């Protein structure tokens, strides 16, 4: 097959993919654009004077803030553009990366897994056409993101060149991860595993940038290893340089070449890792819906546990830098004291919230497995045995609750252990762990909401992500945007300011737990009454 032939029908496949994604992609693109538009319009009213922005800049000069935002360029002259670049850009680049990863996986590995690729490849379609088409769609989508975010910034009277640098940077970051997904799609047979691997790379990139940026103002070599860092390293609105964005293109080129190289070394539908034979009989643990749920979620759970722990330990170890920062900058200490909070506690609280939000995302994926079990016909097979619908439903929810508690425990332990490697006493481990576990009711509300959607309106199940997106957005930016209390309070995660432990609010936690139970029961009632969908 010549190079030209291997791309036969790429154009047709691009149009086909765009047609299939005609709702999904515009939602992603517009949502990212709106996020930027909102920041550009809200921030100038919240921080109308340079003095107000400078107060914000001092707050951002702490390790906890740096970890969650950026390298801190322009903190000494915190203009609107510098503020957006430092605090918002990361959280627009990550969705762009997620959009790209899901897009690539959806049009490559998922098509092979379902067998649809076989049908397509039997027609006059080149070997590389499907992958190339998916990448071209990713280029189109990320161009849309770049354009919309840049235009959104221009509405705020910001410099055109810097605005486009930010927009193009976000788009190119998305494309770099499209390249990463092209590689992971070659490795495993399952689309779920392929996108999870690519998402793990996003997590690693986040961690590298966080540690690098905290270690040194402007970031050190670790930051430079992270594709998520490069937009901010272009220093828009401070001292613009375009060349860091070339790194994104470099990653895209290398990963795409690697993806093509790997793709011709395997069969259609197969991964690079050959399937193994397994047991002829089921283990005793595989005797109930709960056992099945645990077995099905085992690889994902192991991945989440490892990822959270690996993220938590180094993050916790940064607590010493918090103490140092306060010692070097008495003004920061004053700000925290004015808020009635110990800076180190504030740091732990930020970490706990961030990790709990991630566990919330796990809970959504775990409950949504009920939906994919139903659509693949597995639920039908199980319910045709003497398993009742409530037993099936509550087994998956029970597993989700237990696993979420376990993940919160591991996260809290990780931060605590990380802190204990520094100057924090061993008591910190227990305190941070309990503080993180206090987010369990909030996580369960998210899980319960997902379950209620699944039970009552299964077609809308994926809308559960809105709660997570809401909690992330307003949890991370509620303070930045100085939003009214009720907006942030709508997030279940807003009611667990658990650290220091003395402030642990018991009543809200009970309310959240009751709410989670009601939601789960509502979903259970819906599930008991409705038809089981078939394949």
């Amino acid at each position: 097959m010549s190079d030209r032939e291997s791309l036969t029908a790429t154009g047709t496949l691009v149009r086909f993919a765009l047609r299939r994604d005609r709702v999904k992609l515009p939602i992603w693109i517009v949502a990212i654009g709106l996020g930027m538009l909102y920041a550009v319009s809200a921030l100038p009213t919240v921080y109308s004077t340079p003095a107000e922005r400078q107060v914000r800049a001092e707050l951002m000069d702490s390790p906890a803030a740096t970890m969650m935002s950026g390298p801190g360029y322009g903190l000494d002259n915190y203009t609107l553009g510098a503020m957006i670049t430092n605090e918002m850009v990361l959280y627009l680049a990550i969705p762009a990366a997620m959009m790209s990863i899901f897009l690539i996986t959806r049009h490559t590995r998922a098509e092979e897994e379902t067998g649809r690729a076989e049908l397509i490849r039997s027609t006059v379609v080149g070997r590389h056409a499907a992958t190339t088409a998916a990448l071209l769609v990713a280029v189109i989508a990320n161009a849309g993101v770049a354009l919309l975010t840049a235009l959104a910034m221009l509405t705020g009277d910001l410099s055109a060149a810097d605005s486009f640098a930010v927009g193009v940077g976000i788009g190119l970051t998305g494309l770099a991860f499209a390249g990463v997904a092209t590689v992971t799609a070659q490795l495993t047979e399952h689309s779920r595993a392929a996108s999870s691997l690519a998402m793990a790379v996003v997590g690693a990139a986040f961690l590298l940038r966080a540690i690098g940026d905290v270690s040194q103002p402007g970031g050190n070599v670790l930051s430079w290893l992270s594709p998520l860092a490069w937009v901010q390293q272009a220093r828009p609105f401070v001292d613009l340089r375009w060349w860091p964005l070339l790194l994104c293109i470099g990653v895209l080129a290398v990963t795409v070449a690697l993806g093509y190289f790997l793709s011709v070394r395997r069969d259609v539908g197969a991964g690079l890792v050959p399937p193994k034979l397994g047991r002829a009989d089921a283990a005793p643990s595989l005797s109930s819906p709960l056992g099945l749920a645990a077995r099905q979620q085992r690889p994902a759970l192991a991945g989440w546990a490892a990822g959270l722990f690996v993220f938590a330990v180094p993050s916790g170890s940064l607590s010493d830098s918090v103490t140092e920062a306060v010692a070097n900058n008495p003004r920061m200490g004053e700000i925290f004291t004015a808020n009635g909070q110990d800076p180190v506690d504030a740091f732990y609280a930020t970490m706990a919230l961030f990790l709990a939000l991630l566990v919330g995302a796990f809970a959504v994926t775990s409950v949504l497995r009920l939906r994919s079990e139903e659509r693949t016909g597995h639920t039908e097979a199980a319910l045709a045995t003497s398993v009742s619908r409530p037993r099936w439903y509550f087994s998956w929810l029970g597993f989700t609750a237990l696993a979420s508690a376990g993940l919160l425990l591991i996260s809290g332990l990780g931060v605590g252990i990380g802190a204990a490697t520094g100057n924090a006493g061993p008591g910190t481990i227990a305190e941070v762990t309990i503080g993180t576990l206090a987010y369990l009711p909030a996580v369960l509300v998210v899980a319960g909401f997902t379950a209620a959607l699944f039970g009552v309106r299964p077609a809308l199940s994926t809308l559960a992500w809105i709660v997570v997106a809401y909690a992330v957005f307003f949890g991370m930016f509620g303070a930045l945007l100085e939003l009214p209390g009720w907006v942030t309070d709508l997030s279940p995660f807003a009611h667990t300011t658990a650290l220091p432990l003395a402030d642990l609010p018991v009543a809200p936690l009970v309310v959240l737990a009751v709410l989670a139970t009601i939601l789960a029961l509502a979903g259970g009632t819906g599930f008991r009454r409705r038809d089981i969908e078939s394949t």
Partner: protein
Amino acid sequence: MTAALEISQLHKSFGQVKALDGLDLSVPSGQVAGFLGPNGAGKSTTIRILLGLLRADAGDVSVLGRHPWINAVELHRRLAYVPGDVSLWPNLTGGEAIDLLNRLRGGADRTRRAELLERFELDPTKKGRTYSKGNRQKVALVAALAADVELLVLDEPTSGLDPLMETVFQDCIAEAKRAGRSVLLSSHILAEVEKLCDTVTIIRNGRTVQSGTLAELRHLTRTTITATVDRDPAGLANLVGVHELRSADGAVTFDVDADQLPAVIQSLGHLGVRTLHSAPPSLEQLFLRQYGDELVGAES
């Protein structure tokens, strides 16, 4: 005779689409009942209602004397199901899937399981995703046949099996019948139904168009007669009850309605019969007749 399964006037709609429109079906206890219909006739929908996976809009359904929606759990201990399109958990082996399904049902006979694995030549150590369609079907069949149940509900269970395995399947169904089990077998493989079933229900567009024992159904249908005659047979075409008459070189073939047979045979006798061959209709013909175009007008 008690019925293992009894459905009358079953209705089910999905939005605007009427899937079942007054369907009747009965499986006599201890018998093998064939459930025939073309694609989209409503066979799988009916079976999903029997399993309590879908809720009927209207009609009476009783499985082993119980209500499939209300008593689902209790009922499912007493029945086993093989879906038409078997989807296995991709990361479980076939053996694990068999064990899981049977444990969820309340246990199965280990010796029978081993014996069935051997007869169906199924490797239980392969992962679900690596099985072919036929092998996935075998996994579901082994799980169902190894279970000690009163009723087997099988939705086109042989659509992926090769002829050798079909024979094994037919033996297994015959054994199940001897063991006193009732079987509902949906199919569009007519030879299989003819070989295995005591009664047959034929449905179309969500409605039962015919049901009864094989013998009863034959009674209702035409006989095909082939004869060689001395005189011109064209006149036969004008007789009441004669259909699709074809003749060439003195040989004539036509179908006769059962109630008109005596009169037609008499007329045939006057033509000087040299050879005569009459055949009961095959299920293929039954099927064609029920779904052939000529009946579309008469039904609606």
